[in-house]
């Protein structure tokens, strides 16, 4: 017979699971039932998901587009920089890494206010999707840099590169042929993190968006405020269907990169 206090951890774990899972299940069911208040007996339907597509297709597509653009920019900015930081680990490198990581600590609202005050008057830029993209890149870039840097710091780049250099490969060639292939697990983990975070980003985006450029989470806030519960739930369901596979892939890729490190 186990001591009753041994059951407390199990109870806490199950309660925490219930607290997190119950509203998710409610939301999925509400998005699929004909009338949430009459319950499941009113029947299941995809009508609400269809309405969500009609109302918010442009938001969903904009978010996918922004996530891919954000990925492209973070790759171009982040991978070469991570390489340089890995090859020259000094105080200046630490300071730069620390500085670009500020958006992890400073709330998105504050960053958005800063961007708005500096660039708000350039209306061509302010009203374009590129303005939102800047916010997303700010927020996701540190994840890309750190993910790639962690992998590069764990391998003996110097020896590998010296070998290639004696065979006559220049710096650019060595970057493409040696650094990038070795960094791939980190790049993959970073890429999945960037896409997942970009699709869900709200705090910066809410301040940076314009009425003509609503992303998926901005649309979600809009539906929570003004649509019937079934539509809000169906839209949340669409979001789950997009984000959960990404989250699973992200955790898999990060665990894989970790294994390579150890």
């Amino acid at each position, binding site marked *: 017979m186990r001591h009753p206090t041994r059951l*407390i*951890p*199990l109870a*806490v*774990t*199950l309660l*925490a*699971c219930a*607290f*997190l*899972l*119950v*509203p998710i299940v*409610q*939301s999925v069911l*509400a998005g699929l039932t004909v009338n949430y*208040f009459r319950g499941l007996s009113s029947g299941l339907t995809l009508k609400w998901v269809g309405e969500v597509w009609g109302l918010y297709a442009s938001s969903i597509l904009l978010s996918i587009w922004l996530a891919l653009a954000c990925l492209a920019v973070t790759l171009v*900015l982040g991978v*070469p*920089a991570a390489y*340089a*930081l890995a090859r*020259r680990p000094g105080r200046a490198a630490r300071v*730069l890494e620390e500085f670009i990581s*500020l958006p*992890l*600590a*400073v*709330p998105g*609202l*504050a*960053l958005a*206010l*800063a*961007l708005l*005050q*500096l660039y708000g008057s350039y209306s061509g830029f302010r009203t374009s999707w590129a303005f939102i993209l*800047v916010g997303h890149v700010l927020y996701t870039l540190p994840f890309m840099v750190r993910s790639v840097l962690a992998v590069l710091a764990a391998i003996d780049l110097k020896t590998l590169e010296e070998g290639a250099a004696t065979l006559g490969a*220049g*710096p*650019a060639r060595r*970057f493409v042929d040696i650094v990038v292939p070795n960094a791939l697990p980190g790049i993959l983990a970073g890429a999945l993190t960037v896409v*997942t*975070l970009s699709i*869900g*980003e*709200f*705090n910066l985006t*809410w301040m940076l968006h314009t009425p003509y450029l609503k992303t998926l*989470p901005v649309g*979600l*806030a809009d539906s*929570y405020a003004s649509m019937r*519960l079934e539509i809000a*739930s169906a839209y949340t369901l669409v*979001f789950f269907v997009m*984000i*959960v596979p*990404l*989250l699973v892939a992200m955790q898999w890729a990060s665990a894989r990169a970790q294994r390579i490190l150890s």
Partner: protein
Amino acid sequence: MSHRSFLLLCLVPLASFALAFLAIPLVRLVLASGEGAEGWAIYLTILRTPRYLATLGQTLLVSLAVTAAALAVSTTAGLFLARSRFAGRRVLLSILTLPLAFPGVVVGFMIILLGGRQGLVNQLLPGHWVFAYSVTGLFLGYLYFSIPRVLLTVMAAAEKIDPALEEAARTLGAPPWRVMVDVVLPALAPALIAAGAIAFATAMGAFGTAFTLATDIDVLPMVIYTEFTLSANIAMASALSVVLGLVTWALLLLARSLSGGTVAAGG
């Protein structure tokens, strides 16, 4: 091209981006906070205005309560899941990490589904069980997105504890609670401090959840938002943002120096 200049070239895109979209905007934000009618005395005004002080106090209080609750729940569940092997363990773990990628607005909606006017609790116990739009709702929302983050940090640290230490304590006759207090918790302390700081900083800066739940709860991000959009009090919105940013940044810096890992606030 020499190797050294190639490395510098690799840093140019990142450094230019950080300069144009991070460094200069942040400097602009700090300067804007001093451009109001009262100049730099605006930071004194924050301390002298009861509404701002009350907001600051309420934000700190909710964040502290969430941190304590998230640490208690996630340490209990994390240690349990890290140490037991049973069918369904992976499922429980997946459920507990699922909300990691949920934005604050979605978390707010989850709380409305639980405790809103048409929420589950109010349907089961009709009448008096609408808590989503109050500080309780905010607390639960912050707890919702803090549990997964704290849990992952605790579990990673728990797996590194040498089981021989606990065995030694048990062999010496220590009851389970003494092993917990004298061996396990001290070994987890750096991770707990780090995770606690993340939870606290995240709760301080969380905007989406408060935005979805209510406009009449005065927490710092909501006040910054209303100062900026409704009152057009740019200087005050900037000054409050600077205060909020400094507090969260300092906390996460402390957390990182204690844990050495990558931590991120969000939500």
